[in-house]
C-alpha cells in the first residue's frame, strides 16, 4: 500500500494498463503535451509516446467517434473528457454508437471503450460546469457507469473499466483529485464493476451516497453518533450495474434509508435506489425512504446560492433524523 492522491491513483492505473496491454491508448484534449487539464495524464506522453497518448482538436464528437471505431477493431481506448459537461457534444456517439453497436451488430462488435474525466459540482463553476452528468448515461442500456469516491477505488475501478469489453462511463471529480488515501501498488489489483462497499457500519439507518456526498454523509454520521444515531454508509461505486444486493442487505439490517445525490432529484439515482429498496425490502422498512438531492435548478455561481442548491452535511443530518423519527416531529 502507498498513500497517494486520487489523481496519482488514476495516473498509476493508466500507466499500469498502458504497460500491460499494448492495445490501450489515451486520447483527448491536452492529454499529451499539456499532461491533462487536471494532470491525470502527467508523464504518460514521455513514457508511452504520441501513438499511445494522442492530443486532439476541441471536437468531442469527433475524438469520441475515433475511440469507438478503434474499439470496434480491437483497441482499448481511454477517451478523456476535459470535463464531463463536454460529453454532451458527443452524446450521439456515446448513446447511439458506443452503447448500441454490440447489440445492433448481433454481437459481431464489442466497444471496449472508457470515457473518463471529472464531473459533478465543484467550487463555483456555475451552471454549465457543475452538472451531475451520470444521469444522462446510466439510463442508456449498453453503458456502464462508474463513480469512484476514493483513491483506491479510482485505481481499482479504472483498471476494471479498461479491461471491460463494454463502453464504460467513468466520472471523476475535481473536488476529489487531491484527496489522499491508501492505494495498493499491485498491478493486478482490480475492483470489479458492480460492487458497492460499506464505508461505515451502523445499525439505525442506511445512507447511500457516493463521491463528495459520501464524504458529507460521513461527517453527518459522525455528528449524529453523538446523538446516539448509528449510521451505516453504503457507497455504490458503480451506478450501472448497481449493486442492489449490498444496499438491500444494509436496509434489511437498519430498516431505514436515506439516499443522497448531488444532482437534481427528479428521476435521479436517489429515485432509482429508493424504488429498488421499496420493491425489494418493503417489509423491512420502518419508514419511507428519504432522498436528499440538489435543488431542481441550474447551479448558481454565488457561493451562498451554490450552497443552497447542494446537499450539505446539515441537510443530510436532518434527513437522517427525520427518517429515524428523531427530529421531535412526533
Amino acid at each position, binding site marked *: 500500500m502507498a498513500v497517494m492522491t486520487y489523481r496519482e491513483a488514476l495516473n498509476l492505473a493508466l500507466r499500469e494498463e498502458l504497460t500491460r496491454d499494448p492495445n490501450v491508448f489515451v486520447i483527448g484534449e491536452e492529454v499529451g503535451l499539456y499532461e491533462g487539464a487536471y494532470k491525470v495524464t502527467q508523464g504518460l506522453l514521455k513514457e508511452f509516446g504520441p501513438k499511445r497518448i494522442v492530443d486532439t482538436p476541441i471536437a468531442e464528437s469527433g475524438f469520441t467517434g475515433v475511440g469507438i471505431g478503434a474499439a470496434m477493431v480491437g483497441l482499448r481506448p481511454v477517451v478523456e473528457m476535459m470535463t464531463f459537461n463536454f460529453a454532451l457534444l458527443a452524446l450521439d456517439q456515446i448513446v447511439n454508437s458506443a452503447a448500441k453497436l454490440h447489440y445492433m451488430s448481433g454481437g459481431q462488435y464489442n466497444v471496449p471503450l472508457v470515457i473518463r474525466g471529472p464531473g459533478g459540482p465543484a467550487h463555483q463553476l456555475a451552471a454549465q460546469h457543475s452538472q451531475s452528468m451520470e444521469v444522462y448515461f446510466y439510463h442508456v442500456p449498453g453503458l456502464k457507469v462508474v463513480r469512484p469516491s476514493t483513491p483506491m477505488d479510482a485505481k481499482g475501478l479504472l483498471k476494471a473499466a479498461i479491461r471491460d469489453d463494454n463502453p464504460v462511463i467513468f466520472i471523476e471529480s475535481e473536488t476529489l483529485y487531491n484527496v489522499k488515501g491508501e492505494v495498493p501498488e499491485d498491478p493486478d489489483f482490480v475492483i470489479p464493476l458492480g460492487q458497492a462497499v460499506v464505508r461505515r457500519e451502523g445499525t439505525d439507518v442506511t445512507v447511500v451516497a457516493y463521491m463528495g456526498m459520501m464524504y458529507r454523509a460521513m461527517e453527518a454520521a459522525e455528528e449524529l453518533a453523538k446523538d446516539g444515531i448509528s449510521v451505516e454508509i453504503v457507497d455504490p461505486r458503480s451506478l450501472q450495474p448497481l449493486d442492489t444486493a449490498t444496499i438491500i442487505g444494509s436496509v434489511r439490517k437498519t*430498516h431505514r434509508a436515506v439516499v443522497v445525490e448531488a444532482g437534481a432529484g427528479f428521476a435521479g439515482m436517489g429515485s432509482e435506489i429508493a424504488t429498488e429498496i421499496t420493491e425489494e425490502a*418493503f*417489509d*423491512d*422498512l*420502518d*419508514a419511507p425512504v428519504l432522498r436528499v438531492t440538489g435543488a431542481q435548478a441550474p447551479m448558481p455561481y454565488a457561493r451562498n446560492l451554490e450552497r443552497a442548491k447542494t446537499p450539505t452535511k446539515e441537510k443530510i443530518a436532518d434527513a437522517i433524523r427525520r427518517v429515524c*423519527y428523531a427530529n421531535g*416531529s*412526533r
Partner: protein
Amino acid sequence: MPVTKVVMPKLSEQMESGKIIKWLKKEGDRVQSGDILAEVETDKADVEMEAFGSGVAAGNKAPVGSLIGVIAEENDDIGAVVAQAGSGAPAAAASEAKAPSGAKPGMADRPAAVPPQPKSEDPAARKPSPSTGSESPGSRRVQDAVAAASVPQPSGDGGRVKASPLARKIAAQSGVDLKLIQGSGPGGRIVRRDVEAASTAPAAAAVAAAPALRPVAQPAAAGAEYEDLPLSPMRSAIARRMPLSKAPVPHFYVTSEVAMDRAWELREELNGLEGQPKISVNDFIIRACALTLLQHPGVNASFQGESIRVFHRVHMGIAVALEEGLITPVLRDVHAKSLAQIAVEARDLAERARQRKLRTQELSGATFSISNLGMFDVRDFSAIINPPEGAILAVGSVRRVPVVSDEGLGVGRRMALTISCDHRVMDGAMGARFLQDVKKLLEEPLRLLV
C-alpha cells in the same frame, strides 16, 4: 341521508369487547350529535357512549367494532347495511349471537360483525349533517338495533391502521394486534419500536379474544362444595395482565423505612387550616415521588425492547382498590402540581374510579405508579409492576413504633416503602438512591411545600 352504523366503540387500549349496560335511547328516538346513547361496561370502567346510535341489546356483550345499532332517517332503508353486516359474519356467529329479549323480529336477531369504525371517522357522530327535510339539522332517527354478536370482526378494512411495513411484519410474527397500539411515528404511524414495546407490554399482548362470559354460577345450596363466580371484565383484565408482568419483567425489590413524625405533624397542621383541601399521607408520598423522579429520570423510565425510554414528565398511576378489583387512574404532570392540587385531583380520580366514571384517557399513560395499602394496617408489601412502567412503589401503614434515638427510647411514626423495579431498566443501587431521596423529602416535609 346515509345510514350510520353504530359499532361497539374502542374505549381503551386494551378493550376487546364491551357490555351494554343500558341503552339511553329507544328505537325511534331522535338522536342529536353528541347525545349519550348508552352505557358500556369495559374491563376498566363504565363509559357513556356518545352519539353513536341506539338499540335494544341491553345486557349483551359485543366485540369492539361489531355492529350494535343503526342511525338513519325515517325513510332510509337500513336493510342493506344490516344484511351486509350479517353476511360478513362467520357461520359461528349465528350460534354465538345472543338475541336480546324484546328485540324487533327480523332485525335484532340478525347476527352481525362489521369492521371497527373509529369514532373520528364517523361523520354523523362528529358533526350535524345538513337536513333535507323538516327535521332539525343533525338530527337522525334511531331505528332498530342489531343484536350483538360475540365473534371477532374481520380485520384489515374499515378503519385502516397506519403502520410501517416492518411494524406490520413484526406484529404479524409476534401476534400483536396493531389496532391496540398507539403509533409514535409521524401522523401516529405505528413503527417498529411501538410494536416491540407492545409485545413486551401485556396491554397489547392480550390479543386473543377475551374469554366469553358464561354465567355458570352454582347455587350455594347446602352440600355444594364450591361455586364458580363469573369473572367481571375487570377481574378478567387483571387476571390476564398480571402474569404478563410478573413473568417477563424481572422484578427486584428495595425496602426502606421512613420517619413520618414531621410529615404527620405538618399534615395535621395543614388540615387544620380553613378552606384548604384535606391532604392525605398518600398525597405527601405522591408529591415526594414526583419531585424525586425528576431527579432520578432513570426510575421514570420504560423498557422498550432495544432501548430505554426516559420520560421527562411524571404521570403518576394511583392504584385504587374497588370492591371487585383494582384500577389505576393516572394523575398527569404531577411533578408540576402543588400538594393541594394533588390532594384535590387524586381524591377526584379515586372517587370517580369507585363510581366507575373515569374517562378512558385517565386510565393510561402512567410513567410510575404508587400502591398504598396503609389503610389496612399493613407493615409492608411488594407490588407488581404495571408494564410498560419501570417501577411501582408499595406503601405500608404509618405505624407507631418504639424508636431508639440519642435521647433514649421513644415512640415514633414509621412507614415502610418498597419499590419494585424492572431490572432491565435499572439496578438495585438506582432504586435505593431513589428511595433514599423520597425518604429525605418525607422526613423534611417542608421541602414538599416549596
